[in-house]
């Protein structure tokens, strides 16, 4: 992993010609975590998708980033194992075997279930496997705690703090109070009338 800080200056996101939030600047050093806050529709998801390079912008998204949206990218007819194999094939990935990933996410007893038979929380947990499969410096997580029970939330927080301890950076959009030590918080403010068209 390269050890350059992530600098984002004066960025805003637009939808249908309207700025969603007042311009923001972000500086994140290795191992830092940022929690994005803001009302519904304030542009948190759009900002994350922009940072992930899914929405074109003037930012050069040269950092390898991993985006976990609020959809889990699961197909109902594929099993847990088959999802892991597919994701592994899509990208050069760490040599962590499936069994170890399932153990870390405590999904072992569900390994042969179809995604349609998983509860919402289990689906979310399976989506976290992508964080373990692909090495990326920047994690972009959109409401990762949605539908999680206490244990699963604990797993998520552990993943994030492990990532941070290895110098990784996370940007997390969340409404809840995630207890992450040393996390910065940024609240997206609605764009002022003058910047609106």
């Amino acid at each position: 992993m390269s050890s350059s800080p992530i600098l984002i200056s004066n960025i805003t996101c637009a939808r249908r010609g309207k700025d969603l939030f007042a311009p923001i600047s972000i500086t994140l050093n290795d191992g830092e975590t940022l929690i994005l806050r803001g009302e519904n529709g304030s542009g948190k998801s759009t900002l994350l998708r922009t940072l992930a390079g899914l929405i074109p912008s003037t930012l050069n998204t040269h950092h390898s980033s991993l985006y976990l949206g609020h959809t889990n990218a699961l197909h109902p007819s594929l099993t847990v194992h088959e999802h892991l194999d597919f994701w592994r094939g899509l990208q050069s990935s760490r040599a962590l075997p499936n069994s170890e990933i399932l153990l870390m996410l405590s999904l072992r007893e569900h390994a042969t279930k179809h995604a349609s038979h998983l509860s919402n929380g289990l689906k979310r947990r399976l989506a976290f496997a992508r964080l373990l499969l692909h090495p990326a410096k920047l994690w972009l997580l959109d409401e990762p705690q949605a539908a999680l029970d206490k244990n699963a939330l604990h797993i998520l927080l552990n993943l994030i703090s492990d990532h941070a301890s290895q110098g990784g950076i996370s940007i997390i959009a969340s409404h809840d109070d995630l207890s992450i030590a040393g996390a910065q918080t940024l609240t997206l403010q609605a764009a002022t009338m003058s910047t609106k068209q």
Partner: protein
Amino acid sequence: MSASLALFQREMLLAWRVRGETAAHFVFILLIITLFPFALGPDTQLLQKLAPGLLLLAILLGQMLGFERLFSGDFHNGTLDLIPCSNLPLPLYALIKSFAQWCALFLPILIFSPLFMLLLHVDLNAIAPLLLSLTLASLLVQFLGMLASALALGAKNSGLILPLLLIPFYIPVMIFAVSLAAQGFTAEGLQALYFLCALFFLYLSTLPFLSGAALRSALESL
């Protein structure tokens, strides 16, 4: 390469998992082919004359039924979000998805189509050119469907937009395919064959890139 293979494997596995839907295409085409002779009445010569056009029409219209689902599943469940960050370029993703759909839905039909041709009293010598024309035409239409379904992604009435987008492009494919099937490997038939091959390479070299661009713009709209 391994990313392409992983996607192809997944698509084939999914086609097997939802084999009821996969079989529905087969049954649709089978229905048209078995019912048509009854609708026409007992005129073997007329049936023989109409058979190539009927088979083409049945397969090409059957294909249209599958296009709405080609990318919409991955688009809505978020799998498409993973592709720009993966080792798989979007044009290649579109091409593989589309080819996998053709393999799952239409390769079995093409394999069985000589049997259908016998049912329709097609002349034995005409089977080979007709089979070639069905294969090329269905591949061409698959390319067109790939672009159309990528363009219609995220549109509200994609079920309505898709056929309207596709019909004008079906026409040249139909004309040359029927000409090849009717003329066989004569000079005129070969002309049609060359034209179909030229279209194949034109579509292969352009449409995946256009589809990739359409998919990217669909992602931006999310």
